[in-house]
């Protein structure tokens, strides 16, 4: 179980302070999929990066703790944190086109975590990497193993990213807008894949998105963030159907195509000559 308590972060740039995350607390149960929604600048990505152990240069931690089981990640040294990263906590993010190293073969990239965190032999690593590629529903794993990223499509690369993230079977997978850069069809299949992996390996997923529809589809519980604060929290279905705050209502309204009368659809219909 992962528990975030009273986490506060601010940015410091040229002497100017800017609060990014203000006193947020939540927990992620084992095997749960928790969604965080909010517009850009709401602090959701900063929260994710902090949990993943990658505080940006300008960011200053004001306080709080992040417990993974019984260890407070924020008290660990950089070296100790590196042990946790990739083994217990993994993260995938938005850009599948650039997130893979163009000069490394797919197999090597999926194996990198195993090289760092295990003492497996080359053959064992290969076997595990192929297994991970199979887990993310890529076919011809043997062939893919020796290929370079530029030979793969965006959707395939995102799957490879996921394979590289789960190859060590982490307890927590952070997914920061993993589907935003993909087309709708691919989005759908990646969401299904995350759900499947969650059920198969009982892996906790922290799913971050600005799209409440996507979050509703995948997550059981949802946090709504605005300006670094959690404004609403609860059952995804309930929040989606009966939002309590004006901000959440706004977010739901912003989903294109939810109501046929939305301005977007009016425009489309006008274009189609209806």
């Amino acid at each position, binding site marked *: 179980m992962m528990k975030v308590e009273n986490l506060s972060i601010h940015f410091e740039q040229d002497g100017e302070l800017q609060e990014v995350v203000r006193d947020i607390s939540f927990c992620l149960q084992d095997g749960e999929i928790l969604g965080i929604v909010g517009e850009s600048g709401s602090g959701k990505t900063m929260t994710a990066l902090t949990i993943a152990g990658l505080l940006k240069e300008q960011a200053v931690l004001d306080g709080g703790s992040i417990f993974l089981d019984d260890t407070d990640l924020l008290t660990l040294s950089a070296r100790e*944190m590196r042990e946790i990263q990739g083994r217990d906590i993994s993260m995938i993010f938005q850009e599948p086109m650039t*997130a893979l190293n163009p000069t490394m073969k797919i197999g090597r990239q999926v194996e990198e975590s195993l090289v760092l965190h295990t003492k497996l032999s080359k053959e064992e690593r290969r076997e595990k990497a192929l297994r991970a590629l199979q887990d993310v529903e890529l076919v011809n794993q043997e062939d893919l193993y020796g290929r370079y990223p530029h030979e793969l499509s965006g959707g395939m690369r995102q799957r490879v990213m996921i394979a590289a993230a789960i190859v060590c079977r982490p307890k927590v997978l952070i997914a920061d807008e993993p589907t935003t850069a993909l087309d709708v069809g691919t989005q759908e299949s990646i969401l299904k894949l995350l759900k499947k992996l969650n059920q198969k390996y009982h892996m906790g997923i922290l799913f971050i998105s600005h799209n409440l529809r996507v979050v509703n589809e995948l997550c059981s519980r949802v946090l709504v963030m605005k300006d670094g604060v959690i404004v609403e929290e609860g059952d995804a279905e309930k929040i989606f159907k009966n939002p309590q705050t004006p901000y959440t209502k706004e977010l739901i309204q912003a989903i294109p195509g939810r109501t046929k009368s939305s301005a977007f659809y009016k425009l489309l219909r006008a274009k189609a000559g209806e």
Partner: protein
Amino acid sequence: MNVEKQRIKKRKMGKTGYNFTFGLVLTVIMIGLIVLGFFWTPYDTEAMQGSIKLNAPSLAHIFGTDQFGRDVFSRVLAGAGSTFLVAAGTILIGGGIGIIVGSVTGYFGGWLDETLMRINDAVAAFPSVLLALVIITVWGTGKYKVMLALGVAFIPSFARIVRGEFMRCREADYVTSAKLIGVSTPRILFVHILPNILPALLSALTIGFNNAVLAEAGMSYLGIGVQPPDASLGRMLSESQTYLAGGPWCAVFPGLFLVLIVLGAGMLGEGILDRFGGGRS
């Protein structure tokens, strides 16, 4: 359709294949000759023979003989060897230290970057050959000292190129991915980023190699590089200038070798950049 295909092929060849293939073939031949020169030369490179002074090229001496009756072909082979050795050593020292300095400054930035790059600027402010001249004057002459002096003088240019490339790559998403799975910083620098800057680095190394060949030849020509009786291409050029009218072959062949080595490496570097560096942003 066919014509179009041919045109595309032609354009492709003109852009990448030609430089790369020609440069590679030329470089392999030159290195082959140099390696041959280390183990075998048709005549002793230092054996003087008064009876055959300044003989024109013949079947016995295909590049002719010099003012002491030494076989020019043998001396060219050996001379190319020492020139090549000095150039390779220069690249090894300059490139090696340049890569370390450039990667660290480019990746970390901050005060480390400021300090190292200001020292770098100070070294770069002197023309590299002039700097090498000063170092030689202080340390004394000799093949290995020339190598060291040129190596130090070549550090700034490599450091600058590598630094720029690392600055470009440090924000890349794949570096973030690597950090997120707990890759240590040295491993990020040299396993994850370095292969990505190889196209730029390789072409810088080949250009640097050319400059080193010419710098060595220039210094030997001035008489402060490789010392007699060792042969070096620059030294042969300088010794032969008195006999330019009576025995032009003494100057032409070392010069030709110099040109071919530089040309081969230059084209190879260009070809590598075209072939492997073009597709990247």
